[in-house]
């Protein structure tokens, strides 16, 4: 996952305000960010929370991430397995169905964000 764009050109208050919206967007679309994070590598719930926090500075709480992982696994979108020699963490990866869904959802999400951005830009 790429890190959030540089915000050096924003003053402190603009940065706070920007953070507020990024926080809200990621939290309400956390499933997409989870699927996106799993595009290239296997991760457990802990890794996912850490990765999204470091890349986006948004903390997705445990009580919101784990139920998503469990339901996506039940729906055949994710596959879960314990890594060899480490039974402590269950690593998730996308199934082929999950990969298709992730790519489609991300495309639509980006399109929606672009539309909103175009709509409110003067």
């Amino acid at each position, binding site marked *: 996952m790429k890190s959030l764009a540089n915000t050096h050109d924003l003053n402190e208050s603009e940065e706070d305000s920007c953070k507020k919206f990024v926080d809200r967007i990621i939290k309400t679309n956390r499933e997409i960010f989870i699927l996106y994070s799993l595009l290239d590598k296997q991760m457990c719930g802990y890794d996912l929370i850490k990765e999204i926090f470091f890349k986006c500075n948004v903390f997705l709480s*445990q009580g919101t991430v784990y139920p998503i992982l469990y339901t996506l696994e039940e729906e055949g979108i994710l596959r879960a397995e314990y890594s060899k020699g480490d039974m402590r963490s269950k690593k998730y990866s996308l199934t082929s169905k999950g990969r298709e869904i992730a790519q489609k959802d991300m495309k639509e999400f980006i399109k929606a964000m672009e539309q909103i951005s175009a709509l409110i830009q003067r």
Partner: protein
Amino acid sequence: MMRNAVNGLERLLEVEIPRCSLLLVTGAEGTLKSGMVFAMISNHLAANDEHGLYITLEQSKESHLRNMSSLGIKKRDELHVFDYRDMRREWADRELDMIKVIDEVIDFYKDKYGNLTVFALDSLNALYSISEEAHLRKEMYDFFSSLRDKELTSFLILEAPPRMVPGSFHDYHRPEHFLADGTIELGMIEGKGVVKRYIQILKMRETRHAMEKHQVTIDENGINILGPIY
């Protein structure tokens, strides 16, 4: 509805348990607390177009479902089982606010399925053991209130150590018992070389109910409640 959710439960309940009630299910180990709650919820969901959530803090989901299957209790697709095992392993070095986690898990399933109406926590003892003690009493009050606010009929399983089981009412003067709308006790009685399981409703607000201990049996079709034990 709940009154018909387990074969023979109508012997104890004259009328239906009000929706959004908060019920404590208490008893010593091996008295079928988890099985009784799972069967009540599963059968209730089978008869209604609703969803339920069962959070197990003690057993893994797989082990819990194997246990239920061995008791002849079938899991409905509408009953979602969430276990805490992965979270516990991966966050072993951090202290989690489990009441907040449970709250968020409920919200997730409520958002996803809309008609999530029944909730079970297995068990309160496990929740106590992994929660900070300092503000627990206040937190429990808030937790119970939040379950009511979410309009859930809730079952909270509380294992009572054997010394508390004999049934004297002063054993039940703990905060959970005051806060709950109902208390269902499950236990075992030994007599004439035979051990019998029983269920007794100690309290059920807004509901006329029997006070006697009724025998509980298990067969291939699940749990049955028979007549009074004496």
